């Protein structure tokens, strides 16, 4: 399966890969403050474990500097 992560195409030999697992595999920094978009749409933290990614999905891990949680 191919995914586009922050503009870079990558291959994954995994079945039923979730956003939660991808955050770990990609070693995303500061996961508590990262904003996740899948195909341009926002995904909340509650959706991380239930969202299974599919071939061709474009995922963005974004940060917006500012105080908060």
């Amino acid at each position, binding site marked *: 399966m191919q995914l586009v992560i*922050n*503009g870079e195409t990558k291959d994954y030999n995994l079945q039923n890969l979730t956003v939660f697992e991808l955050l770990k595999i990609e070693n995303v*920094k*500061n996961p508590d*403050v990262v*904003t996740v*978009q899948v195909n*341009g*749409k*926002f*995904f*909340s933290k509650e959706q991380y474990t239930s969202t299974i990614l599919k071939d061709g999905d474009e995922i*963005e*891990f*974004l*940060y*917006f*500097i*500012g*105080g*908060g*949680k």
Partner: protein
Amino acid sequence: MKISTKAIHGDRTNNDPYKSLKFPVYDSVAFEFDSSKEIEDAFLGRALAHTYSRISNPTLAELERRLAILSDAYGVVVTSSGMAAITNVILSIAGSGANIITSPFLFGNTYSLFEKTLKRFGFSAKYVDFSNPENIENAIDENTVAIFFETITNPQLAIFDIEKIVNMAKKHNLLTILDNTLATFYLFSSKKWGIDIEIISTTKYISGGATSVGGAIFDFGTYDYGRNKFIASDAEKYGKNALLVRLKREVYRNTGGCLSPHNAYLQLLGLETLALRIEKSSTNAMVLAKRLKNHKKIKKVNYPGLEDSPYYNNAKKYLDGYYGSILTIELSSKSECFKFMDNLKLIRRATNLHDNKTLVIHPASTIFCEYSKEKREELGVGEGLVRISVGIEDVEDIYEDVIQSLEVL
């Protein structure tokens, strides 16, 4: 941990690379990168990095982080002033044709912002009497995007039934925006009472006693921005971060209302003594209000902590044990007010609040001078009104000065 302890220690995280116990001033415009790819990632938001101090800066980010801890906000953006904070929020959630419902009891410059500056761009504010929340409901229409009000109004010192206003807003899926400058999160918890957005002039209590001008926007993460057509597109992309992203990647960035790093440093210092100053100045204000209320030269003393204040029940319900440091006295005329003010020996004539020094001003001839006498009456600012921002001096010295000055009338 109690709020006064959190004001000093935050969450004990030390983000300074040298572990400086006071977070330093990063007084640099730009931040450099090791590669072109890294700077591209920073601009796209793919990396947690500062690029340019109009957009973000480490000292500002630390102040934002500390304010979020204290207020229990989801996210905080600090601005160059309280007025910049209000402007940034309205520009982010409204557009041509949009309106907000507010009270005529507002800070003079906020009223001017709504009635003059933003009106030219097709935005409008509807003014209703907030003492009856039904008036708010009757004013709501399909273009209403928010309900805006002040915790303790300046200078009328009204405190409305916040719970009823919040319930009304929720019923109609409207954003609530609260100017919490006079109370701060120390006396009133926006989070607890369901306010969506709080703004504060940090120039006042936060700055440590009028050391620097600044403002802050607090988003409690409670509003579904998908309900507002002016920001719904960002809600789809960024969820509960929609307003913070709209600010940081558009409105705040494009309008340039950033706080200076030096002011952020001063305000971080100010935060540490916030509790002491609020408690001392509020206690002083209560003493003065009680002693002055039966003075024969004063027609009326307005202070929400007085039991005969029409706002006492709301003050007791919503404020956390203190009633703020602002009181007003009513004299018979503008000339009486000027005589009283000009004879003060200790108290300073100046337009600010929450300085460590006690300050006095005649709102009608200053903050509200751009309006007619009739309009001022409508806004709750009479010709005989004197506003006293009580400082942290010994209350006996403040009282003595007020009494000796009343004697010339």
